[in-house]
């Protein structure tokens, strides 16, 4: 924008950015979990307890057999959804609380988000594995294709990241919308695809459901979990378009916001 200098090479920039993100990850780990080791546990325990709770409730549902009452279906799906929601909610206010960091010119706004998201991704992948083992231990079946499950997790993170960048920029510009975003993430739950599979829906409703990007991600997840046993349908190109567009809008938004940041 208004800064030009003897331009360092792209490789130099990439090295600097990786160094900065690494430093931010360590800092974020230290602050979020303090020097008390208990914090590292909550990163895994909190989502696990919630996921196990949700999984068991659905398992106990009377009259539901097969996949509709299965622990793995809800527990694993819930881990993904919860991280999706958390990443978006944490994005609001992420910039104002870190403005002082911008005194260090190597730190760019997106780095703040990438660092957080790396931690969330690592934690979630760990929990995903654990939940899969718990599911097997509870009498469930082995996943049909772990790679598909991991792909679903990766897509969910990229989508959440794009949205988090947008939310981070928007909440810096308009403080009032934080509560609104909180509300939206809750209202999004029933249509997200976490609690249904496409083939359960009547055809007219399916037509609308496929507009929701996370529905495709959950279908991919279930294909990975259950394989051919149930009918799944997903369009990964559609999800990729969402990821691309949210990233572009989010990064552009951060660029606009960067020019307006003022310290008190």
């Amino acid at each position: 924008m208004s800064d030009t200098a003897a331009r360092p090479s792209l490789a130099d920039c990439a090295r600097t950015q990786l160094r900065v993100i690494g430093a931010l990850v360590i800092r974020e780990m230290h602050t979020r979990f303090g020097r008390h080791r208990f914090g590292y546990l909550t990163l895994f325990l909190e989502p696990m307890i919630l996921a196990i709770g949700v999984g068991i409730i659905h398992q106990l549902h009377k009259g539901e057999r097969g996949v509709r009452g299965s622990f793995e279906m809800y527990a694993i799906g819930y881990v993904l959804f919860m991280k999706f929601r958390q990443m978006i909610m944490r994005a609001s206010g992420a910039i104002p609380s870190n403005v002082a960091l911008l005194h260090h010119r190597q730190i760019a706004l997106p780095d703040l988000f990438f660092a957080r998201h790396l931690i969330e991704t690592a934690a979630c992948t760990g929990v995903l594995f654990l939940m899969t083992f718990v599911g097997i231990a509870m009498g469930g079946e082995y996943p049909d294709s772990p790679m598909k499950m991991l792909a679903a997790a990766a897509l969910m993170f990229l989508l959440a990241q794009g949205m988090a960048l947008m939310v981070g920029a928007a909440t810096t510009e308009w403080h009032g919308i934080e509560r609104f975003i909180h509300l939206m993430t809750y209202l999004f739950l029933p249509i997200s695809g976490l609690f249904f599979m496409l083939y359960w829906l009547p055809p007219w409703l399916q037509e609308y459901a496929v507009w929701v990007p996370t529905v495709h991600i959950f279908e991919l997840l279930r294909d990975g979990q259950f394989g051919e046993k149930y009918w799944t349908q997903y369009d990964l190109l559609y999800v990729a378009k969402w990821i691309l567009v949210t990233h572009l809008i989010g990064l552009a938004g951060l660029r606009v916001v960067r020019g307006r940041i003022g310290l008190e």
Partner: protein
Amino acid sequence: MALDLIDVHKSYPMNHGRKHVLRGVNASFGRGERVGILGRNGSGKSTLVRVLSGVEVPTRGRIRRSMSISWPIGMAAGFLTSLSGADNCRFIARIYGKPSQAVVDYVESFAELGEYLRMPVGTYSSGMRSRLGLAISLAIEFDCFLVDEALSVGDTKFGRAFAARLANAGLIIVTHSPSQVRQLCTRAAVMDQGTLTFYEDIDEALATYNSL
């Protein structure tokens, strides 16, 4: 190596219209130069510091940087009170790509924090905090150090470390105190109503400043 400001404007949105703080600042700071910038309260000094350090982006105009500039010396920029002083040092070291242990050792050598270096910054007294801030600021080698407001240098441990750093680095002091400009700078400028005027002669700058 230089830092150039070309017609830099900065304005902030107000309830009615915008407040124009910098109105076309032009400046060129060369490598190793020691420049004092004098300004009364409300002249746009703090805004100039933030634009120089890069925290804020100009509304209009350009900044060309071909040398590294410190964050305002002594400022606890991005320090977290929940982390220990040493952890904060390591964070800064990582950001700037310096060996962590060297930065911690440097800070340990003259911040005089003792055991507290391994305690959360939240437990520090204000004096300890400012010693930590000063020590970390000087632990990184910059081409040019940025100083916001007068520092009590003198013949203290910090003063000597500061002088050692300045032996091969430039300095930009933004202050309302003429005495330090006279003591440390070779060139001076006066900030008034959002514009910056340079004077080759320090006495001339001080005379102008005193007549404001």
